[in-house]
């Protein structure tokens, strides 16, 4: 039992060499795209922060699928919203990615590039016609052929505004701003009349704002970013004017969607984007605000609002591809998207669903007004976030915007630097 020095040395060497071997691991291959065969076996299905409110819906959905396909067993996993991308990346790197995963297009891109997302054009192309053409194309990656997730629900949040703050500033609360020019005028007037105490917005412009202002974000080939053009510089210069006039909240440079939501709730800012779900929050947490709440469309100068797209991806290395593809399709088919839409303020991505009276007829309540207006705007909405725009790139843009607003760099310099940094990250992504 004596442990020789050689054994110890060999063990130590193994400890050192093991990580080296990890550098060469991973074949980067995507596995077979053949999803034909008998629908059976155990699969895992991961959703994005949906268990808390929709446990019953998903349990029924899974039970229905298992009944329809005897021999299948779906294990449902739900992950919190916070750090969702990190959880997926840890699973993907560790080889434990679930068979069916709830994703957004920007999450699909790196997974598809790593060969972990199944190409549905090849594996499930027969279902394409069931979905809105734009929604099916939403999970295509520039520079790659194929579609890498089933379209699931769409959303386009309305913009909420505080009518009493508008009236106090001498603005017409019945005619909220609709374009960026209207917004800038209203924001400057509000800051002036409140002596800088009430800001109109609590967030700096994001890539979606650049898109809605009419700034071209990427070249057609998807190989370089272009948001540093004259239009982009113009938008940033306008925001700089707002920031200097305190029409933009002083903490906007470090704000998150949660913190800006709180600012709106405490009536420190007059406008904030949100969803129909927020109405319930306002009613419960800020009854005074709820009495004065105004609802309008997203600000856009292009005539097209921003659309958020959710998808359901199939792991290309799933051992039960037929069952995984069948389940992903089952979750996203017209019938189930419609039933999900009736439980929550989301919109189906299936062809013809938006023509259902549920999305076209108002009953006089705010909820239906928001729903009908959003469904109408979705018909021409655009997903402005480029699928290749990673979290690191969002940080680069955000920092550049902050430097410009603080006056440390001119808007042109700041955007040039952001484009340079994002292009470099794009190249490093491969």
């Amino acid at each position, binding site marked *: 039992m004596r442990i020789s020095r050689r054994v110890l040395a060999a063990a130590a060497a193994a400890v*050192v060499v093991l990580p080296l071997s990890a550098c060469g691991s991973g074949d980067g291959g995507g596995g077979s795209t053949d999803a034909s065969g008998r629908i059976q076996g155990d699969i895992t299905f991961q959703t994005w922060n949906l268990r808390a409110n929709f446990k019953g819906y998903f349990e029924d959905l899974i039970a229905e699928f298992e009944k329809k396909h005897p021999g299948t067993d779906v294990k449902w996993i739900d992950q919190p919203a916070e750090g969702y991308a990190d959880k*997926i990346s840890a699973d*993907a790197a560790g080889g434990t990615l679930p068979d069916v995963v709830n994703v957004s297009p920007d999450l699909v891109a790196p997974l598809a590039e790593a060969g972990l997302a199944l190409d549905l054009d090849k594996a499930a192309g027969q279902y394409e016609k069931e979905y809105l053409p734009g929604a099916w194309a939403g999970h295509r990656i520039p520079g790659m052929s194929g579609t890498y997730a089933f379209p699931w629900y769409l959303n386009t949040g309305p913009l909420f505004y505080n009518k009493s703050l508008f009236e106090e500033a001498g603005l017409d609360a019945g005619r909220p701003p609709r374009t960026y020019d209207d917004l800038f005028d209203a924001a400057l007037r509000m800051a002036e009349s409140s002596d800088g105490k009430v800001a109109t917005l609590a967030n700096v412009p994001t890539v979606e704002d650049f898109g809605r202002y009419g700034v071209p974000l990427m070249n057609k080939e998807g190989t370089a970013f272009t948001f540093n053009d004259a239009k982009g510089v113009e938008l940033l210069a306008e925001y700089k004017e707002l920031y200097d006039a305190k029409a933009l909240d002083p903490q906007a440079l*470090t704000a*998150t969607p949660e913190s800006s939501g709180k600012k709106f709730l405490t009536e420190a800012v007059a406008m904030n984007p949100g969803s129909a779900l927020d109405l319930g929050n306002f009613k419960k947490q800020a009854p005074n605000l709820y009495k004065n709440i105004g609802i309008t469309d997203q600000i856009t100068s292009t005539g097209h609002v921003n659309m958020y797209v959710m998808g359901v991806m199939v792991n290309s290395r799933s051992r039960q591809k037929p069952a995984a593809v069948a389940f992903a399709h089952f979750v996203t088919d017209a019938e189930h998207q419609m039933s999900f839409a009736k439980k929550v303020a989301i919109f189906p991505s299936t062809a013809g669903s938006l023509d259902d009276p549920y999305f076209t007829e108002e009953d006089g309540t705010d909820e239906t007004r928001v729903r009908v207006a959003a469904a109408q705007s979705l018909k021409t909405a655009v997903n402005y976030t480029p699928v290749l725009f*990673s979290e*690191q790139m969002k*940080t680069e843009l955000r920092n550049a915007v902050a430097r410009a607003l603080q006056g440390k760099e001119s808007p042109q310099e700041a955007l040039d630097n952001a484009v340079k940094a994002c292009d470099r990250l794009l190249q490093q992504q491969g």
Partner: protein
Amino acid sequence: MAGSTVTRVRRQLPTSPWLFAAPGLVIAGAFVLYPFVSTVVNAFTDRRTLVPGDFVGLANFRELLHDDMFWIGLRNSTLYVLGVVPALVILPLLLALLVQKNIPGVTFFRSAFYTPVVASIVVVGLIWVWLLDERGLVNSLLETVGAGRVGFLSDQWLLLLSAMTVTVWKGLGYYMIIYLAALANVPRELHEAAAVDGAGPVRRFLSVTVPAVRSTMVLVAALSSVAAFKVFSEVYLLAGPSGGPAGEDTTLVMLVQRTGTGLSGRVGYASAISVVVFVVTVALMLLVLRADRREDS
């Protein structure tokens, strides 16, 4: 018979310690040594989260030299050490002197000062955000007394200072306990002799207490400087994921997190930053211990 037993014991002796140490060694190997070596190896590759990457030599380190954000992170982590360590060496000692005496109600104060240590850093962060917000309690008080609102969470330097305040506030109780243990070992006779010689409280503190707890002060300086250089939570909670306005409050560990995580994370580059953090923290430890040795000699 006796001889063979001795031989058997001797033969088994070298194995037994290893068997006892084995569980610890396995855990240390898996969770300390392996990640450490893996990080060092990755620092020389262009590995990304989902792509194994290739050996790139010193390219990551060369890139660091031209990365503005790295220098900002290094500056902020260094400032954090300079701002936090002196406060964490001196203030807990003074606090320990205050609560050292056995007077009625002192246990309450000892517990109260220790409470922040056991509180979750997330909760602590949220409380301080509420306090220091543009419309928070501190600004409301300042406004009440006629002063204007202060941008504790929107100004680059005030934000860093606020984060340092949180670190000091949270660490006071922990180091106070260490000092209390050290103070308990200071001979009472020394204080009595100094008092007989006419030394006042300040003189006794400087000439008796400080020399007696000097080695503890060095320990506190070493521990707090390493912790301060690796600060993440306080700055992240107060400055937000962007690292303050334009990322100007980013620390090195925040940069590691931001660069190396996510589906497009640059694991190789983040590992190179981690290696720099490791080298600097080791250097800090050596510096403090060397200063202590010089003082001894």
